[in-house]
């Protein structure tokens, strides 16, 4: 709001009209000059009248529903660590041009960075999902890029999971692709069903079923037996009970065909599914956004990680879903959890840029003894890595 201008219009402008006799020509001229200046000094917001060409929709329309929306862009978050640079007073044009490259690189590079990484079952290879829709395969021992998978997705790859030599990728385009990383023509199967970004992907232990969750609040179960070679594969189950994005997915290690899924901020529930029949066995409101789920391999327990407000990890007894412990410490939502090979320690990573370790699952022996105690102390304590 330009108050000066507004004031002028409300007062001086009026004065001029009320006392035309009293104003001299020079005063008029002055007022005119003032008006011109005010107009010139007012900041105007202008929009280019010609509109740019409309882009063609990247997501197939056949799966659209009443809630279908085309999100044309999704944000990436990365702040470059290099300090801000300004060009020093250039005595030489050459010096100036070199600095030009620096700032250009600094501005454009952050747009190309990625965050989604997944270790292969062999413990040696790493898959990296990039912002530009490509997927890189790295050899961690030789420290080199083995290959880049291209041509599958049309936008960023935000979810990955391995099934032996198959790397399954989920994209912002809603597509899920099975890539056989051993062969040149790596795309062996496509699952179409999500109409918004795929944010969760998990293969069952047997490698027979895949669970996928999307920003469209859908949970799909895909079965390898339904594979089609000449058309996108149809889902086995489409589960629509969640009312927010489904990112957290975990298959039960001690009961076949049992899947746990967690919903985002508008849902906050952990739901349990029989993936054979598609039936929902149980639903528990946790009170906050469920970011990740992890089953205890040693005991019948489930660990969930959350966001606002507590950013806690909650340990539940299964199947009673009684809360055993709540582990706090993270200062922002706990997006990732992983367990140690012996299944006793859990590492959690949050947006607060810390990695914490929790001896939450204990050893089979210790866990039994702890259960016998009536203490309500949480199991946590932890190393903190920044």
């Amino acid at each position: 709001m330009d108050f000066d201008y507004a004031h002028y219009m409300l007062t001086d402008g009026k004065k001029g009209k009320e006392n035309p006799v009293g104003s001299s020509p020079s005063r008029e001229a002055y007022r005119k000059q003032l008006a011109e200046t005010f107009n010139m000094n007012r900041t105007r917001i202008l929009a280019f009248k010609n509109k740019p060409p409309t882009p063609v929709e990247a997501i197939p329309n056949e799966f659209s529903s009443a809630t279908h929306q085309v999100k044309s862009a999704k944000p990436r978050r990365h702040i470059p660590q290099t300090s801000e640079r300004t060009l020093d007073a250039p005595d030489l044009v050459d010096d100036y041009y070199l600095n030009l490259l620096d700032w250009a690189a600094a501005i454009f590079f952050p747009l190309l960075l990625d965050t989604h990484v997944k270790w292969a079952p062999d413990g040696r290879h790493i898959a990296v999902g990039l912002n530009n829709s490509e997927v890189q395969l790295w050899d961690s021992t030789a420290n080199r890029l083995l290959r880049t998978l291209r041509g599958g997705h049309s936008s960023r790859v935000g979810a990955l999971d391995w099934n032996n030599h198959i790397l399954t990728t989920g994209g912002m385009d809603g597509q899920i692709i099975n890539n056989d990383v051993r062969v040149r023509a790596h795309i062996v199967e496509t699952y179409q069903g999500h109409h918004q970004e795929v944010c969760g992907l998990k293969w069952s232990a047997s490698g027979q079923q895949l669970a996928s969750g999307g920003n469209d609040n859908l949970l799909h179960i895909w079965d390898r037996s339904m594979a089609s070679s000449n058309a996108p594969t149809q889902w086995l189950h489409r589960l629509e009970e969640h009312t927010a994005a489904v990112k957290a997915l975990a298959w039960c290690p001690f009961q076949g065909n049992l899947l746990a899924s967690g919903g985002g901020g508008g849902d906050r529930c952990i739901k349990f599914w029989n993936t054979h029949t598609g039936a929902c066995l149980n639903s528990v409101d946790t009170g906050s956004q469920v970011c990740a789920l992890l089953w205890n391999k040693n005991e019948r327990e489930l660990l969930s990680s959350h966001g606002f407000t507590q950013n806690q990890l909650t340990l539940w007894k299964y199947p009673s879903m009684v809360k055993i412990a709540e582990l706090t410490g993270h200062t922002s939502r706990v997006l990732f959890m992983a367990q140690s090979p012996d299944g006793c320690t859990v590492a959690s990573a949050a947006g607060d840029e810390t990695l914490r370790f929790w001896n939450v699952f204990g050893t089979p022996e210790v866990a039994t003894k702890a259960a016998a105690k009536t203490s309500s102390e949480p199991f946590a304590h932890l190393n903190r890595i920044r």
Partner: protein
Amino acid sequence: MASKTATKDIITLRGSAAIVSEFFGYAANSILYNRGVYPEESFARVKKYGLPMLLTQDEGVKSFISNLTSQLSEWLEAGKLQRVVLVIMSKATGEVLERWNFSIETDSEVVEKGVHGQRLCSPFTWIESDPKLIANPQMVKLHSFDTKIHKVDTLVSYKNDEWDEE
């Protein structure tokens, strides 16, 4: 003071305006490619600033951007440009999803005094607009650069997304 003026003469106002408006062209292309606004196949790789940059090959988008940059160059020379905003909106709902804000500070000493007589924009290609702000945005400040005549600061704001890391 005299040497400072001499230094600035090297990078003339016109040169600075050309550099900055060219930057906007590449920035716009980069944003359109990386944010997936137009299909990847419609972009071609070129070398610029020592980097592989992507430029649209679509004639419609090309002419839109080049009209934009030549207009920006004019305004930059006149010292009249305070900011350039590139807005990405949902085609279906008209909702603003992402907002790239380039703020410009111009060295007023260097701007020629002949501004008032200069032809400004043709009234037929530009219309008054609202700022197209995003409610409760997340913001990321990127690097700034300075040609000593024009200083450009970049800030991108976007809608809070469920799974964005804080």
